[in-house]
């Protein structure tokens, strides 16, 4: 845990500018076992201090890989000088955003470290379980990754605080061979927000998940290519989360709106069926913690939920302080940086489409000829709202019943067209917090969604 050695340096904040001073530590623990071989066994930590100075819309940022009071002094000075230097080369001039909050956010929890030996033992236990029970797999990977963050934030005219975000996951990959000798893969992430013991004190509780994963890869080795074209599909909860993040979330980040995203001309207009409500949750969901809680962002804004789509109408964007001023919205804590080296940029937190009223069974039974898409490997989106998700696990649906498994494919569409085709939404939500979002810097994000029936374009042969 970081000890606060920077608080006393706020006296160096200059008048007439907005300054944020941040201490930031990233901690990584990694182990990977490939088909029984320990191929990664590493630990790393990086810590440092940065400062960002906003001088009438021109920003100076400086960071140092050093954690001392002197380093804090240096970054404040260097960031101030950078803003001054750049003002000689830039035509930008924007009034400083109004102060919107103050006070201090208390430390939310601790990060508990674990010996590397325990991590290796955990991965070995999973690997032994799979190797002994499922010898017919052609390959398997057990990979543990912890990427925890610890931040102390001081701002000149917003809030301050000390926040930690511990996160650890085990990724399990299984490979099987088809009758023709072609490999097919499937994966699952287990774990989430918290430290090692929060998730892995009883590894055996994950055995049913592993057994299910094996069944899926066995189904997949008999799998078929989907038929290409626009189809009726049921997106599973993990796919619903990907939809929330990729298809919609990026288009409503205010920096992309400023860059010409399709969300710009659609504010306060219908962009989805009335069954769709979507929220970027800050730290809590449905009376409990959101997958990756954010209490304070790296501009010193106390985090609040942002409703993005309400009953199908686009009602909000995710902002930093400057864009919130520009769009007449309230900043809600979306500006974050990944390491001490990184300036805060607009990021999602826990983006989710809210549940509806149907059961999952009802959704599947309603499809005469289509696909049930369960797991996504990755996704991307564009300014136009055109998105794609890789689909790594899915099944065909014939006459309301699940059929053969699908080989890897990709689905695509234009978000605000596709969301208007949503006509059934299930009554539960599946969250995931294992992913990284890439946007100049990586960022850990949570995403979630219910099962959704919609029309989507499927890639295939």
């Amino acid at each position, binding site marked *: 845990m970081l000890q606060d050695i920077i608080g006393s340096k706020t006296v160096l904040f200059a008048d007439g500018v907005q300054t944020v001073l941040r201490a930031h530590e990233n901690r990584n623990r990694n182990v990977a076992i490939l088909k029984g071989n320990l191929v990664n066994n590493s630990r790393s930590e990086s810590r440092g201090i940065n400062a960002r100075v906003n001088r009438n819309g021109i920003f100076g940022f400086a960071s140092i890989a050093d954690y001392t009071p002197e380093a804090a002094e240096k970054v404040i000075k260097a960031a101030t000088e950078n803003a001054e230097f750049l003002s000689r080369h830039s035509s930008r001039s924007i009034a400083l955003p109004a102060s919107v909050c103050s006070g201090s956010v208390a430390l939310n929890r601790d990060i508990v470290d674990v010996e*590397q030996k325990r991590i290796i033992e955990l991965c070995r236990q999973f690997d032994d379980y799979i190797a002994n029970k499922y010898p017919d797999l052609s390959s398997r990977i057990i990979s543990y990754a912890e990427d925890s963050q610890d931040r102390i934030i001081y701002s000149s005219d917003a809030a301050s605080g000390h926040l930690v975000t511990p996160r650890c996951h085990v990724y399990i990959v299984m490979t099987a061979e088809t009758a023709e000798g072609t490999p097919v893969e499937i994966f699952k992430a287990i774990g989430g927000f918290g430290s090692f013991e929060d998730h892995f004190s009883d590894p055996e509780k994950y055995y049913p998940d592993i057994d299910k994963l094996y069944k899926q890869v066995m189904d997949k080795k008999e799998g078929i290519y989907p038929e290409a074209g626009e189809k009726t599909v049921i997106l599973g909860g993990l796919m619903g989360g990907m939809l929330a993040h990729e298809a919609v979330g990026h288009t409503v980040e205010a920096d992309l709106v400023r860059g010409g995203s399709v969300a710009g001309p659609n504010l306060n207009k219908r962009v989805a069926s009335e069954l769709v409500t979507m929220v970027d949750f800050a730290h809590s969901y449905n009376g409990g913690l959101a997958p990756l809680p954010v209490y304070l962002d790296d501009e010193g804004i106390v985090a609040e939920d942002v409703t993005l789509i309400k009953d199908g109408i686009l009602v909000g964007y995710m902002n930093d302080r400057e864009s919130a001023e520009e769009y007449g919205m309230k900043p809600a804590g979306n500006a974050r940086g990944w390491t001490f080296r990184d300036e805060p940029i607009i990021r999602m937190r826990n983006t989710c489409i809210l549940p509806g009223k149907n059961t999952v069974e009802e959704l599947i039974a309603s499809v005469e000829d289509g696909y049930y898409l369960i797991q996504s490997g990755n996704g991307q989106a564009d300014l136009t709202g055109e998105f794609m998700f890789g689909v790594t696990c899915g099944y065909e649906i014939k006459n309301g019943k699940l059929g053969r498994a699908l080989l890897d494919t990709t689905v695509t569409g234009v978000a605000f067209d596709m969301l208007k085709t949503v006509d059934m939404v299930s009554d539960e939500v599946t969250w995931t917090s294992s992913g990284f979002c890439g946007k100049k810097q990586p960022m850990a994000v949570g995403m979630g969604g219910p099962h959704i029936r919609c029309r989507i374009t499927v890639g295939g042969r």
Partner: protein
Amino acid sequence: MKTVREIGDSFDAIIKDRDIQKYTYTLSTSEKQELNLEDGTFKLMRTVFDQNGSVRVFRDGKTGSASGNDISEEGLNKLLTESIAAAESATEDPCHDIAPDQGKDVFRQGVDKPDIDRFIERVQELLDLMDKDYPKIKILGGVASIDRWNWFSRNSNGTEFEGIGGQYGFSLEISASEGDKTTGLDYVYFSTADLDKPFIEMADVKEHLQAVSDSIYPESVEGKFEGKVIMTPSCAENFLYMTIGNYISDRVIIDGTSQWLDKVGEKVADESLSVALRPFDERIVMGERGTQDGYRTEEVQVLEKGVLKTHLLSLYAANKTGRPVTKNTGHDLVVEPGDKSLEEMIASVDKGILMGGFSGGQPGTNGDFSGVAKNSFLIEKGKIRCALSETMVNGNLGDILNHICGISKEQCLSGSSVVPYIAVDGVIISGK
């Protein structure tokens, strides 16, 4: 302030005190000066003073690694403690090893004394030209960075390498708009060691600006057809790196799932394709000089006239599988040019697409790919007809390399790769 070499000398004493017989470490310091653009002007200036230390130790046939950015004496001691604990927790595996003695060397690369004022002039010159000649282009983000670094690595077999270098890097994230109509995003990047040429002439900057300007009114293809795809250099580079990862890298060779497991020496691609890793090519700005295993980096021919010459294996993977190690970590891609111009290649396509980017799921080990053709244009009867949206491409990495139907004379020099346009046949192209 101590140099990384001096810190290394201190580290040696610490390692000796801890009675570690086999080890390898790398220490580095770096400085970044970065100018960030938004909406056509400079918005943020970012300075990063960074440093890093990484160490890997071996004990009784077991190995563990630790890294961190505290390279004070206390920090290095902590790194050693962590790496020893990791090694002692590991299982014994004699395949983990470090390269034999490669001697001592100092590598100086790239720009020594960067000129930030001239760099800003070059960026501003491009912005002014874009304003004038590409008025529909909108800059969502741009990063102009000057990076300098000094690294030092040493291992217990006697190898001692030091690298001193720097480069200019420039990237743009662009779209184009007219009224309410906006294109998708496009990206362009290059690195360089000098500022001799205007940035509009670097890499394929001009081609990207023109392509995005021409993409405001896209159409989707009708139905589904099997056709030719001409990949732009950046798109072709992406496909070639996916092929390397899926067919000849450590993981798929160790676990035996590679489709090219026993294909070294055999023809796996069209004979027009020759691919190499050339860190010493003068067109590569900061080519690799030492591998992660501690070898002196060598140039590697991966494919020669369609024949697979080698897998790309680390020392561990080589020991594990009994195959030769590759003295190259896998960067600095150079693809031999062909004998046709891009114009001739387009003219030879009856129906197909010019594909500027691929947005798709990560192909599985079998090489099947499926995704959206981004920044792409429909070609019909030898002419570009329109920009495309909502158009998918499906195929197999290994299959398309056997169906290459053209490689351009033109190559894109990005500073980290040299790649031409590559045309392939047999790709399933589908619309809504």
